[in-house]
Every structure is written in structure tokens, then in C-alpha cells.
């Protein structure tokens, strides 16, 4: 099976770890970026820094740059994101059977398991693979991570959309496709994602250690400040409050984890997780 990938350049955090985790699986990585170095909402973006990091993570020359005009403050950011992803996916589909669509802060810890499940999805005539991601929220000074979890600290998956799709798939919203049949993998026999219906089907189970690591807000203070400006979701958040909470939780991980059973919002519940291989890496 021939695999390609595409990424959107703009967020420099965790690029070497992310691309490096699946670099050996793919023949080509299409890197889509805004020609003017702007985000979808028009804010300045760290495209140059991202591109420099991507080039540094490409020893075999697999990266193909794809410039475009993706900024338009008058339009809904998610629609612009969908268009940018579609253009990148179309380019990555050439010469591939399936295309990996991971963000640059998402890491594949077990490439073998990941490719096995893409093959399994293909074997069942599915055209998209929903693979669980563990959302890591912050890293404490001690190196411990805060990870989203269930009410009693159980595993909780998140799905930003399929992270691998058949070549030629049409995207309908960000990474999602309205028409591609899904093969859905979770970390337990029953759905663990609170954003999905309780009875969402689980076609296969992987061990949590094999789930994608989404280094969501595991960033430096400067990177978080930039994210608050350029994120596609930026206008829907009270970033002053969010950043204050983020700093506080990172400073007090034990207290944050202890409050989990009493927290109503299922995406605000955290457990403490040790990931020694990423404990000292500068994002």
C-alpha cells in the first residue's frame, strides 16, 4: 500500500516529533502553506519557522511544498481550512492509495499499529480511518503531562476527524468527509469520546500507548500566545481566561487531577500522565 501525507504549515510546535513519527511510512509529504504567511483569519503566522523545521525533518527529500492563498478574514475560518486541506489532499493523492492527514502537533507512537489499521480499514472497504488521539493539555515543570480523561481518570479518546483517508477523498469539513465510509478505532470496546454518541460503533480497539498523541496545548508561553491569535477557533474563546487557567493547571497538576471527578465539562477533566520520551523536549 502506497502512503502519502499532507500537513498544513503554520504551527511550529512539535513538528520534528510529529513528522518524524510517520516519516518512514510515506513516500511523499505535501506541505501546504499560505503564500503571504497569514492565518485563515488574516493574522501573521510563523510559516517561515514552520517550513524551516519541516525542511530540517526531511532527510530523504520527501517534502513537496504547495503554496496557496488561504487567508480571508471575511470568510468562516473552518471553510478556508477545509479548502486548504482539500487542495493538499488532492496533491498528496497522486501516486498514493491512502493519505495520512495529521496536524503537526500530532505524534504517531506506534507506526506499525497505525499502518496495520489503515490496511484493515481498506480490507473492509472503508475509505477513512478514525483513530483515537490522546489530548495532552499541558506539561508541568516536573515533566508530568496533564491529559484529558474520563470522570474517574479513565482513558478518553478524541477524534478531530479521520487521520487517514483513501486517496481522492472529498472533505466536507476540516478533516471530515461526509461520504467516506469510516472504520473507527477506539481505546476500549465502547466509545470513549464524549463528543460521539454513546453507542458510536467501535470496530477495533488499540492499547492507549498506540493512540496518537495530540500535543494540543503542550507549548511554550510564546506559542500559546500566538495560538490565541491565529487559531481557527480563536474568536470563540475567552483567551485571557483560558491562558490563566492553563498556567494555573500546569503549575498545579495534582490539584487539577484531583478535581476531575467533580468537573462537569468532559473536556476539562485531566489526569496526570508520564511520557518520559517527551518530558524534556522543547516544543
Amino acid at each position: 500500500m502506497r502512503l502519502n501525507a499532507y500537513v498544513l504549515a503554520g504551527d511550529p510546535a512539535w513538528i520534528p516529533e510529529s513528522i518524524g513519527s510517520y516519516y518512514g511510512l510515506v513516500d511523499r509529504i505535501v506541505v501546504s502553506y499560505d503564500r503571504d504567511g497569514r492565518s485563515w483569519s488574516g493574522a501573521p503566522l510563523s510559516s517561515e519557522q514552520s517550513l524551516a523545521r519541516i525542511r530540517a525533518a526531511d532527510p530523504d527529500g520527501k517534502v513537496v511544498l504547495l503554496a496557496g492563498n488561504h487567508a480571508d478574514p471575511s470568510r468562516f475560518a473552518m471553510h478556508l481550512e477545509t479548502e486548504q486541506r482539500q487542495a493538499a489532499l488532492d496533491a498528496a493523492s497522486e501516486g498514493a492509495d491512502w493519505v495520512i492527514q495529521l496536524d503537526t502537533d500530532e505524534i504517531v507512537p506506534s507506526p506499525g499499529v497505525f499502518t496495520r489499521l489503515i490496511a484493515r480499514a481498506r480490507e473492509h472497504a472503508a475509505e477513512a480511518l478514525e483513530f483515537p488521539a490522546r489530548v495532552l493539555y499541558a506539561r508541568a515543570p516536573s515533566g508530568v503531562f496533564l491529559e484529558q480523561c474520563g470522570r474517574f481518570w479513565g482513558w478518553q479518546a478524541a477524534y478531530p476527524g479521520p487521520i487517514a483517508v483513501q486517496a481522492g477523498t472529498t472533505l466536507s469539513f476540516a478533516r471530515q468527509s461526509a461520504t467516506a465510509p469510516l472504520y473507527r478505532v477506539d481505546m476500549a470496546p465502547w466509545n470513549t469520546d464524549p463528543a460521539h454518541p454513546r453507542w458510536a460503533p467501535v470496530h477495533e480497539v488499540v492499547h492507549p500507548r498506540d493512540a496518537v498523541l495530540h500535543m494540543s496545548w503542550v507549548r511554550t508561553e510564546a506559542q500559546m500566545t500566538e495560538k490565541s491569535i491565529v487559531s481557527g477557533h480563536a474568536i470563540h474563546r475567552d483567551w485571557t481566561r483560558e491562558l490563566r487557567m492553563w498556567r494555573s493547571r500546569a503549575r498545579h497538576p495534582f490539584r487539577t487531577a484531583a478535581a476531575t471527578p467533580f468537573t462537569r465539562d468532559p473536556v476539562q477533566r485531566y489526569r496526570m500522565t508520564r511520557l518520559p520520551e517527551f518530558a524534556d523536549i522543547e516544543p
Partner: protein
Amino acid sequence: MQKDATTRAALTLGRYAEAVHTPLSTVVVIATYRRPDYMEECLSHLGRQSVAPARIVVVDASPDDLTRDVVEQHPGVEYRRNPRGVGHTATSRAIGLEGAHEEIVAFIDDDAYAEPDWLERLLEPYADPNVAAVGGRARNGQSDEEHQGIGEIGLLLPDGRLTGYFAAAPDRVVVVDHMLGANMSVRSSVVRELGGIRDFYPGTCLREETDIALRMRRRGMRIVYTPFAVVEHVGGRYARGRRFDARYRYFGARNHVVLLATSLGWRDPHVRIYGGTVLRMTRREVVAGLRALKHRDGARARARGLGGGLQRAVVDLVGASAGVVAAVRATVALRRRGSAT
């Protein structure tokens, strides 16, 4: 009818392989109970196949001779009796298999009408010697059914439930965990290797056709679904009760536990996990009943909603409990016979 019984049938394998000459001979077994009209239509369709089976065997569990009269109108079709009567479809399948010397056994329901190239297409995947069994597609006449469930056809889910979607029409042959009894086939050697067909599935006979598939799965055998071998499944009347009534639900819950425990073994994680799934399903039905109190208009509608939810929950629990008892008995019987599964 017999034109290809002893000669090699030339099969064209479409896009999946080069054309080959295959020596595969096939017996088609039809289990029936009091559906002579459907049987007539079923046999008529089988008589128009592009690749004819070596034999057709009808196994009749009816208490009357109406089906026998129909079969006698079709020369060459073999008629056998199942003396155990209604509720023993698996026994009918086993009776149909007795003395079979053909390489492939195909099963088709009496209310399933085969397309002219049904058998020809059903045999194509056997060109791969690793394929142990092949299931086909059953059109039910429901809108958009050809697109429903692509990507999850015929799976045993990690929570112990099964998916169906045997009306789906993907663009290729796909790997599955089980097949639809109305349209399936298996290598005779595999049936022999597994010790034949077992009948632990009384009542509505739900899951009886899945038993052999999961036993194959346990041994790592390859089962595929071909969307190109098509029958029109018209859905004949039930011998007793209606589809999806409480009796249907009870035997569904009971027989499912028996299926998992006896075909996969008690130590298989699906068995334990399915216990949790039953409890979750029970909770879901109770919650649905309680929600009806809040969301439905009128005392009668509320009472029906609550009663329906509670009834389904109780039926699921009682059925699953009865399944545990039946599975223990079946396991003991198998051990006495000297086969664990």
C-alpha cells in the same frame, strides 16, 4: 442443471484475478418450513443459473407435504425431511449436507431469489485457496441499502455485538467475520474439519448461521463477502410470531450468548465484554422508557413508552441469562462429545 457437475466450470474473475478454470462443484442446500410458494420461486431462479450447481437439496421441516409437491415439479432436486420440525434450521442445514461430496456447499433461503449469475459470482473468490467461506449480498428492497454500512459489513465488534449490512454494495470483495445465512457458502472440507454444523439455536434460530463462521474465525480462516453474488431477499412470513417482537428479541439475546461462548470459547474476551454490553443495553432501554415519560404527549403514550422500554430491558436480561445457562449446557455436551468448540 447438471451440465457442470463433473466438468470444470470456466469462471471469469472480473477485476480481481485472471480468468481460471476451476474444478469447484457445488451443492445448494435450502432449509424450509411451510413456504411452498416461496420455494417454487426460489427453485425457478436456481434453474436459471449461468453456472449450475451439481445438486440442489431441499430440507423440509413442514408438517405437511405442500413443499414436497413443489419440489417434485423440479426434476433433479433432492427432497429431504427434517423430523425435528420448526425452530431447527441448523439441523436442516446439517441434513442437507449429509453425504455431500461436492467441494462447496452453498446455502440459500427459501425466500431468497438468486440472480442468474449468483452461483458463478459466489464461487469466484474461491480462486484464492486461502478463502474458506464466501457470503453474498441480499437485497431487501430498502432505500439506500447498497450504501449503508460499507466499511463495517459482517463484523464481530470488540463489544461482542455483530454488524450486518449484507445489502451493502462496496466496489470490491471484502473480508468479514460472518455471513448471512440466506446467501452463504463454505468449503465442504472446512465444514468437515470443524466437525459439522451444530444446532444450539432454537426458537427463531437467530445466530445459527453465524456459528460456523465464528468457529472459522477462531481458527484464523478467511471469510469474504462478495457484493456481486446477489439474491433478492423478499422476507417470507415467520413460522411463529413477527420479526422484532419480544420472542424474537429474547432468542436474539439468548442465542447470541450461546454463539459467543460456544464458538469463540468462554475465555475469549468478547464473552466477558458482551456481559457489559448487555448491561449497557439494558440501561439504555430503561433510560429510553423514562425519557418517554418526559417527552411524549398523553398518558397512554407515556405508559406505552415506559412499558416498552422496561419490557425490552427485561427481555434482554432474561434472554442473556438464559443464554448463559444454555451455553454452559452446550459446552458440557461438546466436551462429552470430545470437541471443545
